[in-house]
């Protein structure tokens, strides 16, 4: 099992900077996941990138926990540092009524298409995104295909069945 001492040090630094930035920390299987409140994700990402060299956003993805869950959606930020070679995961939880989160394209340019994909498949809206539109599904598609309550055959008339 990988040692997470180094990663937890970053969490301590986050806590020392602003305790409101962290709502939960999970240390499991050699990976550390920090759950961040929605309104502070920009500050946390800025802090980690500029002060602690997490200069690469390896992945940004969403997940639907199911329509019965609250909060229903989560957005995961997989950070990586090419300087000290550590990986850290940030997580933002979103409710179904307000699946909005601030975009991180101002911090990592690569977040652009990842956020478009998350919006396309799950319907998570990234506020202030420069060009938030569908990227994988056809532009006239109805609904968001990876939501757990999306019917397998799709909505009419696109089911074509």
């Amino acid at each position, binding site marked *: 099992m990988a040692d997470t001492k180094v990663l937890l040090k970053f969490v301590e630094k986050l806590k020392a900077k602003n305790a409101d930035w962290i709502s939960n920390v999970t240390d499991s299987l050699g990976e550390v996941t920090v759950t961040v409140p929605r309104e502070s994700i920009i500050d946390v990402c800025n802090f980690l990138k500029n002060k602690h060299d997490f200069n690469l956003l390896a992945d940004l993805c969403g997940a639907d926990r199911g329509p019965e869950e609250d909060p229903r959606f989560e957005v995961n930020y997989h950070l990586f540092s090419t300087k000290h070679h550590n990986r850290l995961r940030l997580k933002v939880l979103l409710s179904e009524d307000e699946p909005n989160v601030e975009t991180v394209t101002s911090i990592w340019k690569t977040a652009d298409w990842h956020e478009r994909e998350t919006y396309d498949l799950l319907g998570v809206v990234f506020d202030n995104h420069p060009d938030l*539109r569908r990227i994988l599904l*056809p*532009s006239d598609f109805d609904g968001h295909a990876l939501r757990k309550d999306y*019917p*397998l055959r799709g909505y009419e008339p696109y*089911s*074509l069945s």
Partner: protein
Amino acid sequence: MGLENTLFESLPDVITAKLDAVVNWARKSSLWPATFGLACCAIEMMNTVSSRNDLSRFGAETFRASPRQADVMIVSGRVSRKMAPVLRRIYDQMPEPKWVISMGACATSGGVFDNYAIVQGVDKIVPVDVYVPGCPPRPEMLVHAIMMLQEKVMKESVRDRRDTYEEESRQSIVPGTLPVTEGTALEEFAKTQPTKPYTIPSRHEKRRSS
């Protein structure tokens, strides 16, 4: 030497025949498919042309890269919803006479992919002449389909396959230019545009369906 001498010795200088018979014989002897592989069926399609199965025995080995030079569209594989307008576009670009072979279970009925992403049967988009079952069909089955198509071609009339200019076909949407309707400045613009169908059926298609 050879066939020519034998023919000219045994045949008169002038013979009469039905125009349909001559033209259809020429058409069926050089059915050129369009290079259009969609999924795993395309591997079998490529194998059909290879030396073991040798589709050139039936004059159909010349896969053309341009739909303008093709006669047969072999829909080899599942057609995704996003691919559907593109497939129809390629079909529209093929000049008459043109035929379609739906190869495999997925192209014919959606196959195992009974979901929102896959068109449930390519005959919802283009008129299909021969359906080939199988997942994927063996090359022999595709050869058989070509031979069945050749039989079908022989039964047609030249009048059935006219390349007609369709005024209304210009009204259909060009694939890739569908208006974006969510979250962009184009939304207002899209509302002002009249709704257009993906495609207009050609005269040949209308006659088939009626």
